[in-house]
């Protein structure tokens, strides 16, 4: 089903919030797609990084339901390649934080099997908790 949207000022609020939280002028993204093509994790994503920017530009809150920002590995490949000089990693972080700050964790530590926890180095557990829990 093709979604139909009506652009209202409510959409601008969401755009403003993400722009402020990320410190990026999201409206300057010209959708060239370099970020998506650079992203090592894009194959597993439901929307591409450029698409994520587009949804934010249009103020569409449903971007918060997507999986893409959780699959991001914060590798900064998009950051060093964006021809407009935008930092997409910060936009992804802003979207994650909007969810996490509402106490909606992305992973449940308790559900990770014990042997896996023992196997994982601290660096993985700490970074995983930082990125996926509030």
């Amino acid at each position: 089903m093709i979604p139909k949207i009506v652009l209202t000022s409510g959409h601008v609020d969401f755009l403003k919030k993400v722009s402020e939280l990320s410190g990026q002028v999201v409206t300057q993204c010209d959708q060239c797609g370099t970020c998506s093509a650079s992203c090592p994790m894009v194959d597993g994503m439901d929307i591409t990084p450029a698409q994520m920017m587009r949804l934010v530009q249009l103020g569409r809150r449903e971007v918060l339901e997507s999986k893409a920002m959780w699959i991001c590995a914060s590798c900064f490949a998009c950051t060093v390649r964006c021809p407009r000089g935008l930092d997409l990693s910060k936009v992804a972080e802003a979207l994650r934080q909007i969810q996490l700050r509402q106490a909606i964790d992305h992973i449940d530590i308790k559900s990770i099997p014990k042997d896996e926890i023992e196997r994982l180095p601290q660096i993985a557990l700490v970074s995983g908790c930082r990125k996926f829990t509030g």
Partner: protein
Amino acid sequence: MIPYFPGCTLKTKADFFETSALRVARCLGTELIELPRWNCCGTVTSLTSDDLIHHVAPLRDLIRVEDMNTSGEIYQEYRLVALCSMCFHVLKRAHLRVMQNPGELEKINNLMYLESDYQGKVSVLHFLELLRDIGFPKIQRTVKRPLAGLRVSPYYGCLLLRPKEVAIDDPEDPAILSHLLEALGAEVINNPFKTRCCGSYQTVCDKAAVAELTFDILSRARQEGAECVITSCPLCMFNLADRQKEVREKHPEFEPMPVLYFTQLMALAFGLDDVCGFDQNAVDARPLLQEKGLSTRGAS
């Protein structure tokens, strides 16, 4: 004597990374002393504009370096060396953040009222930068056992090279590990995927994705002719080495590829056989080394 920040994993699962590094440094005439009362850096840098609290931890570590100078423990030494790529990244970015935002520095300093104020003097270095400063010719002269015939592929990962403000080399065309390996006498094999992310913290909840990345990175290295891969980060090490188990679940034909810390090869080359730590690698490199006539005597 230069202060050195170990970070959590180097004290436990990756302790052989630390041991080999410290000995290698000593061999080159540099004493790395562990930062007193250091705390975990946080592993990742907080990327939102309004979050100051997550910069407190890394800044405290930087303050320790300034304290060491004030107390006279070291003299005019404001460099802080990190081994782990993630620690290096977080510490350096914390410093840059407060340098670019003096208002934020003031707030953080005020919050940590029991600590001295951070003056902004610390220069965060990765161990590779220190080696570059020491000079690859000197490293070459220190080599006792050239790694001749060993085909090694450098793997940088992300956080040493991106974003540009922390990069220790050109993000798209880094050469520092190649120069190091050449100095050690090894044959350097270029891997076009040397700067592709290993998956980082996704290893916690999405092993499959990490396995795919590892498969791509290591297969390509092999295709280019590499016999082993070196890295500088305990998380990269885990994803590239430990996760080969998961790679074989999906790609049963995948041959194990030894992954080592670059300091292990340095130790091997310098003849510091007791700290090479080859018994601790997830993928045993000793058969390969033996084949090349480079095996160590003794326990490690």
